[in-house]
């Protein structure tokens, strides 16, 4: 469960988001909103990557402000347009995430294999196409023991064959560990492949559940 209290985000003194109280019980959520509505900003703040005002609390225990280390251990994030140092290989990047997120040994093998990354995971990032980079970012977001996974535009640049694989990961993780997923996208998620998806609308600088 993720809880926001008096959450506010300003950019250059201009209010971008204001959420008085909002609770997301474990589940799969589709974050919708027009371009520039603040979806990515919200996800980055929830990932503990940018400053904000108010409180973000995970499962009633970990307040991001007070328990940042425990919170970030439990919340993973994949950016819409991931950027990584060009000289690192995919394998080295996985190593960094494995160490930081305290992932069990060989945990990545399943994800690398199923997303068909094995052929180029040893190559430097600068040789990757945008689709390959996206797949790698998604693998990284599943490493460790996350209680919440935030995926910003996970469908963008991803080939059609990889979508069912991603949906299967989400379904499996949610069913086995009760993981909360928050996915932002302009496209609708295909019914049947995912657990019931609830829509959250980001508009007029705030959040609300879609009717």
């Amino acid at each position, binding site marked *: 469960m993720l809880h926001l209290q008096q959450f506010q985000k300003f950019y250059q003194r201009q209010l971008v988001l204001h959420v008085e109280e909002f609770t997301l019980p474990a589940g799969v959520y589709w974050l919708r909103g027009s371009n520039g509505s603040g979806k990515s900003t919200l996800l980055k703040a929830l990932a503990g990557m940018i400053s904000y005002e108010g409180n973000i609390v995970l499962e009633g225990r970990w307040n991001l402000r007070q328990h940042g280390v425990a919170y970030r251990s439990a919340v993973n994030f994949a950016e819409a347009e991931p950027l990584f140092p060009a000289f690192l290989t995919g394998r080295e990047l996985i190593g960094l995430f494995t160490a930081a997120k305290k992932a069990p040994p060989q945990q990545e093998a399943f994800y690398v294999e199923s997303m068909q990354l094995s052929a180029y995971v040893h190559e*430097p990032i600068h040789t990757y196409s945008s689709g390959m980079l996206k797949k790698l970012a998604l693998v*990284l977001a599943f490493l460790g023991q996350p209680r919440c996974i935030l995926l910003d535009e996970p469908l963008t640049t991803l080939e059609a064959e990889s979508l069912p694989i991603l949906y299967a990961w989400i379904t499996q993780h949610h069913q086995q560990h009760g993981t909360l997923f928050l996915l932002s996208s302009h496209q609708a998620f295909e019914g049947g492949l995912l657990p019931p998806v609830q829509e959250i609308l980001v508009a007029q600088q705030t959040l609300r559940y879609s009717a």
Partner: protein
Amino acid sequence: MRKPLTRALIKILATGFYRQHTGFLLALLVLVFSSFFYTNVLNQTHLTPDQQRQTALKLALSSVSEPWGILLLFSLFWLYTVKSRHYLAARLQAADLQFLRYSSNALSRGQQLQSWSLVQLVISAPLLIVGLYAMAVGVAYGYWLVPILLPVYLLTLTYWCAAYYTRLLNEQLLIPPVQTDWLARLRSWPKPLFSLFFYELLAHQRVPFALTKVVSLLSLGLLFYVFADSHTDQRLLNLLSLTSALAQVVVLYQAHAFEQSYVRFARNFPYSAWHQFGQQVVLYSILLLPELVVLLAISPFPQGLRAMGVLLSVTLFFRTLFYPLNQRMTPYLRLVFGLFMSFLLLNLFGSTNLLIGGSGVATGVLFYRYREQE
């Protein structure tokens, strides 16, 4: 200037060039160009006004009258142009400028050449100023060779660069990654999070890094040589540290830009503020290793150790100033130069502990408070 392509290129590339090289250009201005324009010599009461003027213009006069001076001036122009050419060629490979490969080349070759020439001229503005000054001095003192050759030389260099950029975009040329084999050897080396910027310097920022080290170590050597009688004076060692910290400004900017773009993902890592701060300390201890070793080698151990403390804490302070200011280079440089002057004053009064402690505390506060700022 009214052409949209020229306007866009100047805005993106010339501005980017100046932003990225502000530190070096300022250092160049202070160390080289200021003497070139006017060399102030003390105790010249025995000279006539005309002799005084000639002494003050000695460097500029040499650059138009002496063969070695002319060679030096032309070499400086050549080096600056090659440096800017490398910068622009590398930028044209970047993802954010790929649109030029399917937009700018719709214009005629002549129009493109014209736009690129203007961009190169804007980038060469410091050379134009120095060149015009040298020409004026040459004309005033009757040395005609440089005033005649220099415009031709500058225009040739400008055309050489413009033709290169046009060719890169029209023939869709990609510059292959430099020294891939050399980099491949680094692949087996461990790359913990703190070391990523060090590898970035080795992979993509070798020239600025090498120049920073040259400037930093040269200034250490020069000051040490000038103040030959004060080698055990803590204030001299601190002065060396402060100068060396100032010389790192370009690398510090690169570090911030790299962290904001390519290591942004690490903000989601479960590392405490202390852990992250420790990583910065380790990184800069490695980057400053040559200077730290020199400081320790040239001074008695306790003084050397304190000078090392000054260098590390002030460099870290200069680095963390980027967090609240982000990549706004002009206020940053103003602040850094102001702080540098204040630190020099503090040093004159022998406040080494205050320098180390104050910088350390300020670094910690800035880092803790602003590290998540975008």
